[in-house]
């Protein structure tokens, strides 16, 4: 057993499109401890998004061992994986991935519905979370009625809803202008300060510098894993 939240050993991922086999990850060893803020950087096509999807149990590795919160998730079936995604991981996507037809409140409520949280507690948690990301007055607005920065804050509130072990963010500032991006970075920094564990994929070196640790991925391998102070 290990105290790591994320513990990956020799993780490989091969995409088999029939004719061509693409080896996106060629053996990743990664361990993340509670309270860390890890930035994963690397050029596009390096495999960092694939790594992110595997960490979040959105996809399954071709081989290797993966323990999430001490639980071996490489052997779980679909329903168990759904539960893991629901309880252990909170996602923030580049494209927000909010459901467009329903309100901010209902979007944040969704993982709580899947997690079987009762109506009264849902209402309380969602209200609290939206207040915390500064959208207490926008709860009934639909995503289309919000700005990009506001949408991403709804997504962060949604990621926090089930009080997950780790927050995963894939280019969270990629679709935002500098000022909105800065707000989101600040929000992540605040979450880290509150003791959350964060893994963020980013191009944005400003954001990477705020992290406690920077992991650089290239060609499906980790080529550098250092404390952020060492990043030039």
């Amino acid at each position: 057993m290990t105290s790591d939240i994320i513990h990956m050993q020799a993780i490989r991922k091969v995409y088999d499109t029939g004719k061509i086999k693409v080896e996106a990850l060629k053996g990743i060893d990664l361990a993340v401890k509670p309270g860390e803020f890890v930035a994963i950087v690397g050029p596009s096509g390096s495999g960092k998004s694939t790594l992110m999807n595997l960490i979040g149990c959105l996809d399954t590795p071709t081989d290797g061992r993966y323990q999430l919160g001490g639980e071996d998730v490489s052997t779980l079936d679909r329903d168990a994986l759904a539960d893991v995604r629901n309880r252990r991981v909170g996602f923030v996507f580049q494209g927000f991935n909010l459901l467009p037809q329903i309100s901010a409140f209902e979007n944040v409520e969704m993982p709580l519905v899947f997690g079987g949280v009762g109506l009264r507690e849902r209402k309380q948690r969602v209200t609290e979370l939206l207040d915390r990301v500064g959208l207490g007055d926008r709860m009934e607005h639909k995503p289309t009625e919000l700005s990009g920065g506001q949408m991403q804050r709804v997504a962060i509130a949604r990621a926090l809803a089930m009080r997950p072990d780790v927050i995963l963010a894939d280019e969270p500032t990629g679709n935002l202008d500098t000022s909105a991006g800065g707000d989101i970075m600040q929000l992540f920094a605040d979450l880290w300060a509150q003791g959350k564990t964060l893994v963020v994929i980013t191009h944005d070196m400003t954001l990477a510098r705020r992290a406690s640790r920077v992991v650089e991925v290239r060609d499906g391998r980790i080529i550098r894993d250092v404390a952020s102070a060492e990043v030039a």
Partner: protein
Amino acid sequence: MSDILRQLIRDVRSQKLRTFLTVFGIVWGTVAVTLLLAFGRGLHKQMIKNSAGLGDRIAIAWPALTSIPFEGLGRGRRIRVREEHIEAVRRQTPGIVAISSEYNETLKLHYGMKTVAVDVSGVDSSFGAMRNLIPEAGGRFINPIDVRENRRALFLGDKIAKDIFGKSPAVGKTVIFGGSPFLIVGVLQEKVQNSSYNSRDEGRAYMPGTTFRALTGAKYVNNFIYQPVSPSESESVTAAVRATLARALRFDPKDKEALSVWDTAEQFKFLDVFFLSFRLFLGIVGCFTLIVGGIGVSNIMNVVVEERTKEIGIKMALGARQRWIMRQFLFETILITALGGAIGFAISFAICFAVPKLGATEFVGDPEISLSVAALTALVLGATGLLAGYFPAREASRLDPVVAMKL
């Protein structure tokens, strides 16, 4: 459970056009098929009713001239049937339920200042039931006592009764008919009749055959009608009637012209066959309508799943299990089907309720909804939608969330 319901209402509300189209597809299919078959059924019943205006599967026979020489007698001899021959046929033909002779004449009818010439038939009491001469309330047809006692009783067609008495009741009045006083015992209830052999019953009068013979001195029947036990035996019964008369009146039993017979049961058989094929036709049209409707519904469901694959992906990423996603789709389809079916039925019922009020009943009949057909229609459409929605939804919920989200 309530979460699913809330989710459902939310989805339906947020996808108004899509929901509307699906519901419309089911409504359209249900209405088209139920109405098609309802009108077919109504028309069939009406045709039977129209034909039954002439009589209840009876045969009408006219004695005429022989066409084949028989036992030394030449052709062209007139066959004259008297009441005793009718009696003989009644006794000797086992397949006959009822038989009545009919004597015809046109006599003058006086009532107050009015005088009209009326076609009258002298008949037996069984004539009324055979020919579907149903009296209006308060009256009756000629009965056996009238016949036995040569009563001067008269049964009037509704049109004649209206011409003479207007709106005041005719039953119980006495008129002078053919020079003798007659008591009006009944008036024909208005009926639908699309064929006749003398004239339509609404314009005729009927009296007991015995009274008729006494009044006019007629000896020979004009024609007679009889009813076989069942329409399928009408041919053998007619042959037996011919044989009996041929023996009594000495003509060749094979001589079809000596006694010409109009078997209305034939007509019913034809109607049955005709409507069987007509309904088959409507059924096929209905099936195609259903198929087209089903394709529409399944198309929409397909599109629904396709455009919602991303949504499914997001939900799975947030921890929705496959079951949860499938349940949502099934619930949605069931709700939409039930709604569409209900609206379709309501429209069909409304139309079937309204049509009889347009006054075209005599020609097209009153459409009649078959509940089983309607239920089956909605069920088929629903099942189509369900299948069409189920498989793509299952496919989508089996994708890895990443893949589904990127679509």
